[in-house]
């Protein structure tokens, strides 16, 4: 017999899990949803960030979430450079569809192999002072290992939303998703804006990497676990909708954990991805899609 506390805990832990999915998906929502760049190497970049954060933390004793903030700017620059390569070799030639996809698939493999060559096949992890502890609010338990990354994810997403709405460049990023040619009438170079936006998406991968290594140990192939989920979240939300991505990720996390509690964990992926199929059947543009043009 399921009690209400069990359900309440499942919803709560699902929301925390959803926050992790949200930060893992947000970068892809920017690149795929707003820029039409299907960066399937995004989860691999998140894992790359986790590995680098493990190294930084081992050397400095920094908290991994703080290390992620420090790693985000260099990852942003890396992303900007990566987009330039992608633009020159694929997008400018109009070959971004299949060849661009192959490029990012290859990049994913290269990152995974490089991680193995440099650090081996073992799992990497970071011990934090709050690991193993929980915050108990009555019958609701919040593992700090999940809570702090969730708060970090929400903070990063809030900063992203504010920047996109309030800053000139942020609004230009939103505009490039809708009509890149119209930007030229305002003397804005859409390629420059896309470079900034793609850099931003990779910086978000660094933040997600910090959250990930607090939640669980990672190995070179950990990105595979998230690839299906982040694509599902972005599509479920509707391409181009960043608030929708947050909501879709939370729904995904809650459904996974509720299903695990009520019907057993074996049903979690089936129910979560089943929801995606139903959504695609009845609302192909996703829950909040439609603005993307």
């Amino acid at each position, binding site marked *: 017999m*399921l*009690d209400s506390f*069990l359900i309440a*805990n*499942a919803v709560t*832990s*699902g929301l*925390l*899990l959803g926050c*992790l999915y949200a930060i893992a998906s947000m970068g892809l929502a920017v690149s795929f949803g707003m820029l039409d760049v299907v960066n399937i190497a995004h989860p691999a970049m998140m894992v790359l960030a986790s590995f680098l954060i493990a190294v930084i933390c081992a050397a400095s004793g920094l908290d991994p979430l703080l290390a992620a903030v420090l790693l985000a700017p260099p990852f942003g620059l890396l992303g900007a450079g990566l987009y330039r390569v992608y633009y020159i070799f694929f997008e400018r030639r109009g070959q971004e569809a299949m060849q661009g996809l192959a490029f990012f698939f290859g990049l994913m493999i290269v990152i995974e192999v490089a991680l*193995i060559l440099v650090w*081996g*096949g*073992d*799992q990497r*992890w970071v*011990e934090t002072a709050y*690991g*193993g*502890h*929980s915050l108990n609010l009555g019958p609701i*338990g919040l*593992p*700090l*290992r*999940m809570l702090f990354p969730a708060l970090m994810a929400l903070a990063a997403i809030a900063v992203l939303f504010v920047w996109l709405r309030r800053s000139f460049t942020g609004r230009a990023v939103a505009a490039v998703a809708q009509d890149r040619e119209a930007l030229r009438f305002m003397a804005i170079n859409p390629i420059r804006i896309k470079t900034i936006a793609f850099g931003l998406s990779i910086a978000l991968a660094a933040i997600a990497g910090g959250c990930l290594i607090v*939640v*669980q*140990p990672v*190995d*070179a*192939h950990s990105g*595979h*676990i998230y690839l299906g989920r982040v694509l599902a979240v972005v599509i479920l939300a509707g391409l181009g909708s960043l608030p929708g991505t947050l909501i879709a990720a939370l729904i995904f*996390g809650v459904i*996974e*954990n*509720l299903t*695990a*509690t009520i019907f*057993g*964990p*074996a049903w*979690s*992926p089936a129910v979560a991805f089943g929801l995606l199929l139903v959504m695609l059947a009845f609302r192909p543009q996703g829950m909040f899609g439609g603005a993307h043009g």
Partner: protein
Amino acid sequence: MTGILARHSFGALASALMLLTSGGTLAQTPSGEPIRIGGSMSLSGGLAGSGRPSQLAQQIWVEDINARGGLLGRPVELIQYDDQSAGANVPGIYTKLIDVDKVDLVISGYGTAIIAPAMPVVMQRGMAFIALLGSGTNEMFRYPLAANISPVGPTMSEDFSKGFFTVAQGLDPVPKTVAIAGLDSDFSNRAMESAREQARLFNIEVVYDRSYPPGTVDFSPIVRSIQSAKPDLVFFASYPPDSVALLKAVQELGLEAQMLGGGMIGPQVTAIKAQLGAQLNNLVTWDVYAPEPTMDFPGTTEFLERYREVAAKQGAETLGLYAPPLAYAQVQVLEQAVTRAGSLEQAAIGAELHKGSFQTVIGELTFDELGEWAEERNLWVQYQGIEGNELEQFKLPGRQVILYPEIYKSGELRTGFPAK
């Protein structure tokens, strides 16, 4: 100095063993075309924590046998490819090994997920095949030329967890309920099946019984549901990443039980021992070898000293407690089968696997008609007295106390998880 002495004494012991098994011929310098032994090995991915130490143990054996005069008087070479812990890569690897590299002998990589995909290729080519830590893989294939270096025995689905439930009978009060949870994979499913069967035999009620899919991120719903069922015993059947995540969720959510553990692959792996440290205390888990005085077979200590010396030089894991002794035994069995067959004729080698016994660093082994150990020898150990995360302590006796089987028992069960 100790290492050098140990290596010499190990070499002498191994030479004596070879003399016994090869009918008394003296070691000579190997000559002629090398005998090539091929296999896949998980050098990256989730199984690499056991795959790479296994490869190191086998490389040590290659050095040893070549120093002893080779196999059938010929030098031995080992050819292994990284299967990346993915079964999908395995058929291609064995096809290449047999058809392109033209290896003379094949051995498996580590674990059921890697062994099973190799079997059809190996069977099609009629090669003798010695597997490493499979869980009743040949039950499906019924291939007569195979043997399995794993203590699970002939009826894993029944016997695997017998030790866990037998040990639990020593608890006061005697447990009445159990929660079972595990990964939806071959090894874990068999382990859980066995747990259900043993629970039935010991008249213990199963109050939670669920499997979870690979790639599960958050284990808190499972642990909370178990907590809600209030079981006396908790039996997990998991692979390394899940074992860590489950134990972390148990700690965070404060799940308590009279006894907790199960067929958890993970605590055996050195990196995970270092990660979990004192959190392992009182965990009762399945194992294949523990450095307890009751398991000091001829050659065991010498092998471990040699392994640790080489591993330290190569920067590999230096405990060598789980897969490495079995990986060394795997090639020892191959060596003895080939020597007894007197040729590289696969049917003859395969037939030898089922005749007589084999002397190895993990004791004397005898295989049944399907290549499983004639009797199960699943070890159930309890971590005791672990302090901090220092790895050296795991080399000492008294840290992984053997509770089952009785013949290797080295200590007494401590009640309750987590340890107070």
